[in-house]
């Protein structure tokens, strides 16, 4: 888990955040910038995972932040502020997607797969992709492409759990689904991504990168 995220779980950090929220509620509105700054990227990635379009994702992220500000008095300390904020972002992005009627096809196909078992492909030459490869923009883009190719219900869960590092329960809360559904979808998302990232076996990278059979771009 990244250091920045881990530190938010520390008691001191939580107290600071609670104090910030109290002061914002008392009228120090400019402090809202300080409150949301650590979560800007997470909110954006949440909306991007749902909308898959940078412009829409940015606009939705901004809307989500504004809503959080307007409804800061409704925030209850039972949940972490970050979870509450992500929940707003998810709802905002979903609402926008509904307006654009983009959900008509994808969820049907995605949900049909959820019921059955998933058999991961057998790669004889699987080798670990080192973290250093993430320094290369094209690698990050390929990972993003693979994620974007997943069905929405898997993408949402994976993004919140494995990229935003929410707990299983927080992910369920943010998406409004059961813990069991989170676990099922998360397993499927991870296995599908693993298959998509393996070149040479019909993975997403194979069709777009000039690679020889069995070679990897890292």
């Amino acid at each position: 888990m990244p250091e920045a995220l881990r530190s938010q779980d520390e008691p001191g950090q939580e107290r600071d955040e609670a104090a910030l929220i109290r002061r914002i509620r008392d009228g120090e509105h400019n402090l809202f910038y300080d409150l949301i700054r650590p979560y800007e990227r997470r909110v954006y990635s949440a909306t991007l995972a749902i909308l898959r379009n940078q412009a829409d994702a940015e606009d939705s992220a901004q809307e989500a932040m504004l809503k959080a500000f307007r409804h800061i008095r409704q925030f209850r300390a039972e949940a972490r502020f970050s979870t509450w904020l992500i929940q707003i972002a998810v709802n905002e992005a979903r609402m926008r997607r509904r307006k654009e009627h983009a959900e008509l096809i994808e969820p049907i196909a995605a949900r049909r797969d959820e019921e059955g078992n998933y058999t991961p492909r057998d790669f004889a030459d699987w080798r670990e992709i080192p973290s250093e490869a993430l320094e290369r923009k094209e690698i990050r883009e390929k990972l993003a492409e693979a994620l974007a190719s997943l069905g929405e219900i898997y993408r949402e869960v994976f993004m919140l759990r494995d990229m935003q590092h929410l707990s299983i329960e927080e992910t369920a809360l943010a998406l409004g689904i059961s813990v069991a559904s989170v676990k099922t979808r998360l397993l499927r998302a991870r296995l599908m991504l693993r298959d998509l990232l393996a070149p040479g076996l019909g993975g997403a990278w194979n069709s777009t990168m000039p690679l020889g059979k069995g070679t990897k771009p890292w």
Partner: protein
Amino acid sequence: MVVNCETVWREISNYLDGEIDPILRAAVEEHVRGCKHCTAVLEGTRNVVQLYGDDRMLEVPLGFGHRLHQRLEDNMHPTRRGFFGWMVAAAAAVLVAGSFEVARSASPRRSGLRTAHAQPGRHVPPDMMVLVYLDGKTFHAAGCPYILDKANVKTIAAKEAEQEGYVPCVRCMKKYLSESAALGSALLPTRS
């Protein structure tokens, strides 16, 4: 406890997240040690979680923070912006009004005159009796040739005529006109 490949695949997420019963964990590990396919699946899935969990995967577009800050600013302080807008509008109105006033004061005074084109007189003896039409614009000296309808003229003091907006006739009251008005009067006949 012995588990098969399907069970391993089903439990891989729980295994990686540490949310698995210790007995089942041991069985999974035992199976993976002897199964090349399950080893590849486990390591590949672990690799996926590790890669996507990296902060570098959470990129935002250039200028994202600035644009967000700007939008929040615009919405958090609408009254401040509104007040500022009103202040700008008020300042502009004052400037416009001031420029009109300056322009007006820089030119001969015309307000209150019955005609925008005529010029007010200068040094007209206030007690001098002059003739005016009720619906006319100029006042005349007695005997002025431009008084055609003598039945409808009335006689008043020059001071009173000026107060009512009448201006000197460019013919009979020429000597009381400003230089520019007098020059113009040489070319333009006036009607009462």
